[in-house]
């Protein structure tokens, strides 16, 4: 495992970038616990300071230190993304694979369920949950909720991929040559499914973070909790763009971009690594 990571780290710049950034963000997420200020309180530091040694990213118009705020935002948004993506990935993969391989009545019932989840109007439900939970709406709960509603589309995708793979030449060859189904799935099909899972994961994380930003912009998430979305919300609310408080508005945007870019690089690198054919090429190149 470590050897693999070390290998990838040395040989693939994308992996190196993605891994470094993610590791950095995870460390930040832990360090954010030791913030010297209460991140929910206002006016803990002088307002609207430009970056300085004391406040490396300056302070905002409601008297908060932007660097510490951003670190807490990284923690919360990462938490949200990980929880939501993990839940929805697990459900999507299980449902998609089972339904694809098993077929029959099971498949039909599950597909009805899946399609129903696709057509459920998510927005009223999110508002419903936000208003019922009110202050107990934290990142974990929001992550679970978004995760529970974010799997159906991808389950469908995985299922159709399986259906397509089942009909492929090599599957038949494998079946004729007496390979067990489990073996076929893990050795023959997985290389096709993993890149798909990776790609949908990236899409899902982007969707989750986008959803959080949207909810914040509409004032529907807990605006006291520092996240990428609420940071943007407050910055725009206080006209950070027009008053040229770039340190305030750009921080969450850059975090968002770097985070997702890192995930993307990491995922493409891993899927290529898992693909036996590209691995061969890599070895040949060396």
């Amino acid at each position, binding site marked *: 495992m470590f050897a693999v990571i070390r290998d990838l780290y040395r040989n693939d710049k994308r992996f190196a970038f993605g891994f470094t950034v993610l590791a950095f963000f995870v460390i930040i997420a832990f360090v954010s616990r030791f913030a010297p200020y209460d991140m929910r309180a206002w006016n803990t530091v002088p307002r609207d300071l430009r970056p300085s040694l004391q406040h490396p990213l300056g302070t905002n118009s409601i008297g908060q230190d932007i660097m510490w705020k951003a670190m807490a935002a990284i923690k919360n948004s990462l938490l949200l993304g990980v929880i939501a993506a993990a839940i929805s990935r697990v459900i999507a993969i299980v449902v998609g694979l089972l339904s694809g391989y098993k*077929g029959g009545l099971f498949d*039909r019932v599950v*597909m*009805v369920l899946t*399609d*129903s989840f*696709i*057509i*459920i*109007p998510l*927005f*009223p*439900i999110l*508002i*419903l949950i936000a*208003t*019922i939970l009110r202050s107990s709406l934290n990142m974990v709960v929001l992550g679970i909720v978004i995760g529970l509603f974010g799997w159906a589309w991808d389950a*469908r995708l995985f299922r*159709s991929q399986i*259906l*397509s793979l*089942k*009909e*492929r030449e090599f599957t038949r060859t494998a079946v004729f040559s007496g390979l067990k189904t489990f073996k076929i799935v893990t050795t023959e099909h997985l290389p*096709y499914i993993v*890149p*798909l899972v990776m*790609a949908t994961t*990236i*899409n899902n994380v*982007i969707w989750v*973070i*986008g959803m959080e*930003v*949207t909810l914040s*912009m*509409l004032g529907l998430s807990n605006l006291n909790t520092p996240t*990428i*979305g609420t940071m*943007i919300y407050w910055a*725009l609310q206080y006209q950070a*763009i027009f008053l040229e408080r770039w340190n305030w508005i750009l921080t969450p*945007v850059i975090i*968002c*971009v770097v*985070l*997702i*870019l890192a995930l*993307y690089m990491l995922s493409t690198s891993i899927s290529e690594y898992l693909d036996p*054919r*590209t691995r061969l090429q890599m070895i040949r190149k060396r």
Partner: protein
Amino acid sequence: MLKKYYIPRLIQYFTVVFIGLTLVFVIPRLLPSNPVESQLSRMMAQGQYLDPAAIEQIRETLQQLYGLEGGMFQQYISYFKRLFTGDLGPSFTQFPTPVMTLIKQSLPWTVGLLLVSLTISWLIGTILGGIRVSFPHSRLARLIELVIMGVRPIPYYIVALVLLILFAFLVPVFPMAGGYSMGVKIGFNARFILSLLRHAFLPVLSMVIIEIGGWFLQMRNVASNIIEEDYVVYAEASGLPKAKIVFMYIMRNAIIPQITGFALNLGFIFGGALITEIVFAYPGMGYLLYSAILAGDYNLIMGINVFSIIGVSTAMLVVDLVYPLLDPRVRYS
């Protein structure tokens, strides 16, 4: 074949639509917003002098007019009855205007906006994705990928706002708000169409910028699998021209999932684009639905969602029925 595949799929379709229609009946009624109360508060917000002595009576009158007096089940039955005659009932926020009228006012804007941006982003994303895979060592192709993937994670709100600031404020070539200009007659005439294009330009551009990434990524993934298929390898080995390989072998085969993706996305265009509508002050269904949810306008929430539910499930049905015809490798199982 018919019995084994089409009929179960149709049963699935109708079951899903039924579940969806039931859910949009139930969910709004669970919302804490209540049409009578939100109307009262709107009356107050609009400045009407609400004598406390009259409030209870006003509540009763509204309750009666809205037809919310019977039990849930009774309302549920009459909802389906009405639905079959194509009647979505009156809106509560714009009583007694029929929900259908309100939807008709907003739907063309939304369909136009989303259809155009979906098509453009699909075309660009697909083509660029194909190019990226076909020329894995080209610097330009890598740069394109980096730009697309770097722009995509920017929160949509920011992208839209930046476009607006650049092209409607700093260099005001595009309008700040609305769907068409003052004094223009709505209809099929040059002035209206030009005005329409001018107003829709930035909203469409903002959506295209964000949506390209998804199509690009999907195309890239699918095509990179295809490029390693035996027939492509043979074609390359036999020295066919690169352009022919790209278009005849790679693009053509990778496009099937792109087409189904496009079709599925068509189903989603009835919901509107809330943030786009808010940022560009553009007319459409997103804001209509949003304000309906906030005001507890049950009939309007249901009406709009009926469109989405039927739209999305029909798109899924069509894709499932047609897909096997497009991709011979998938059998009806």
